């Protein structure tokens, strides 16, 4: 089940949210676990086998680790931590990368026995966060069902946001289902749904047509890359908005995952605005433990290399993702060493445009099936190996959509709405509600008439 399916929007969500409101406070947590398990099993019941195994394994690992720590056996506790992390990463590697390694050695794809479990990359990060936070004594081992909820919580299990164990425990302490939270949750859910159905869905038509064409002109190649740049943003930030909105509906306030990344002034800034929860995870669990920027330039660059290599590998079992990660590493490292000093003299608007350009070129590696395809596409963008003649057609057909997408990727509209809300124009609220209902109905119409398309990040 996905957030943009009719069965979720029209059946699962209203029923689960309404029941959550009426059941007694004491039963709410248990009910939320039950609803999450139904959500997971709906997609593939065998996912529950993986989840129960890793939940029990990690819970007992944390228990054993804590006992060793309490007994003053630091080495034993460290061994338990490392073996626990190794097992979690081994399961991820088995499901996600096993066939990639087989293909490197010319072997055919193997069957896993079980289907690749839902959100395995995100679940693994949650498990790593859990073990590390318990080891660092940021948190105690929770009650079993709190841990089950942390891992299975349906708004975040498929594609995040990646919430650290520490953060989730704070959320559990501050669960509040106020009318304001529910309203904000519904608003953010509908905003995310609109981003996915109305913007990403239509942009995918442009991108699919161009990327699957045998030949393309330079104009087509640029339009395709631009289409993908906005499609990926609206698809994933739309998903994140829906997840965060759902969290609010159930009283859990998850952190924002995007902050208008295409307005970034450099690549470092881009990563503070794009998939914020992934950046925070790597910062807290890889970059800082490696020494961060406290051990000189060389070590900082090495630490950045590790982080961006892992970022690339995490996104998928393909050399294209590794190259994409290293591409971002090169710019990040250059900015830290010398580029920022030069670029700080350049007007901000130019820096924003240059950053956008660099990011868009990077997405070519991200969306290509192979490095060869990526270089062919990049060649097309610069007039090498071009063909076809549909550039003008695509430009006239999609220019308005691209302009709308560009405008909505800026914070202008959000700032206007926030200003209106702050000034408490009472007549504004019914208008706002009507606008949200109309947008919701448009999204439902799209869900009914269009073929279902999954979220892009569900594949990661």
């Amino acid at each position, binding site marked *: 089940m996905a957030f943009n399916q009719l069965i979720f929007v029209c059946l699962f969500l209203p029923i689960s949210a309404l029941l959550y409101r009426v059941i007694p406070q004491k039963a709410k947590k248990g009910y939320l676990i039950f609803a999450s398990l139904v959500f997971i099993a709906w997609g593939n019941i065998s996912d529950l086998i993986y989840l129960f195994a890793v939940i*029990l394994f990690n819970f007992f690992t944390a228990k054993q680790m804590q006992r060793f720590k309490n007994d003053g056996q630091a080495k034993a506790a460290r061994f338990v931590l490392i073996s626990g992390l190794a097992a979690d990463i081994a399961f991820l590697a088995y499901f996600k990368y096993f066939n990639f390694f087989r293909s490197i050695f010319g072997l055919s794809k193997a069957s896993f026995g079980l289907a690749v479990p839902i959100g395995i990359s995100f679940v693994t990060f949650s498990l790593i966060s859990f073990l590390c936070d318990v080891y660092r004594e940021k948190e105690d081992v929770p009650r079993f069902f709190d841990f089950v909820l942390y891992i299975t919580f349906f708004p975040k299990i498929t594609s995040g946001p990646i919430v650290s164990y520490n953060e989730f425990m704070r959320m559990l302490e501050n669960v509040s289902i106020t009318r304001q939270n529910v309203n904000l949750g519904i608003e953010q859910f509908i905003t995310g749904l609109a981003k996915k159905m109305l913007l990403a869905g239509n942009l995918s038509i442009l991108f699919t047509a161009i990327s699957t064409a045998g030949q393309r002109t330079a104009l087509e190649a640029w339009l395709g890359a631009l289409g993908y740049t906005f499609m990926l943003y609206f698809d994933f930030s739309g998903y994140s908005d829906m997840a965060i909105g759902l969290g609010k509906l159930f009283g859990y306030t998850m952190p924002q995952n995007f902050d208008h990344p295409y307005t970034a002034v450099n690549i470092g800034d881009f990563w503070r605005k794009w998939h914020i929860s992934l950046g925070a995870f790597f910062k807290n669990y890889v970059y800082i433990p490696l020494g961060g920027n406290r051990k000189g330039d060389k070590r900082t660059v090495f630490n950045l290399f590790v982080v961006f290599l892992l970022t690339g590998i995490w996104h998928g079992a393909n050399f294209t993702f590794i190259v994409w990660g290293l591409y971002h590493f090169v710019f990040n490292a250059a900015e830290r060493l010398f580029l920022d000093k030069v670029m700080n003299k350049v007007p901000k608007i130019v820096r924003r445009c240059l950053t956008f350009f660099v990011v868009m070129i990077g997405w070519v590696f991200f969306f290509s099936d192979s490095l060869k395809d990526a270089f062919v596409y990049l060649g097309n963008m610069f007039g090498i190996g071009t063909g076809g003649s549909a550039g003008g057609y695509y430009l006239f057909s999609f220019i308005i959509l691209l302009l709308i997408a560009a405008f909505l990727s800026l914070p202008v509209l959000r700032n206007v709405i926030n200003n209106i809300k702050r000034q408490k124009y009472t007549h504004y609220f019914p208008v706002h509600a009507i606008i949200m209902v109309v947008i919701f109905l448009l999204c439902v119409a799209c869900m009914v008439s269009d073929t279902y398309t999954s979220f892009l990040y569900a594949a990661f």
Partner: protein
Amino acid sequence: MKNLTSKNIIFGVLRWGIFLAFVVVLIVFASQNKISKAPMKEVSSAVSKSIDLKKMQKGNDSSFKRLYGLDSAEFESVFLYWPKSNMDAEELLIVQLKEIDQQQQVKDAIEARLATQKKSFDGYGVEQYALLTDSSVVDVQGNYILFVVHKDCSKADAAFREAL
């Protein structure tokens, strides 16, 4: 061993027990779901020899799309025989998958097709309805899926397994 309390031992045994149990589950499932290298030509030939295809006609990409709502280009290979007359219910489908993840998609499409056929014959085609209910097989074997509606469906299934 220093301070190795009984609880520590219990937690250790529990976690590695769960780890091993899950690994065993994966091995068992994987061994039941092996990828066959047998070409579709051999598999389809073995299955079609095992049953009488007289009441069926050979399907193509468009009939596969129409009956199952799937695009044959998404799969490695598709072999379809479907009823010559709309008064018959015999059908044979073999799909060779490109990716093992496509199993669910094809299974769902077959179930939908079976449900549609049952609905069509429910109430007036007693024999056909019985055939669809009692003599149909859906067999998923790694990268191959068989769907057959035929009085000798078990023979077809045996030939299918033998050929993989």
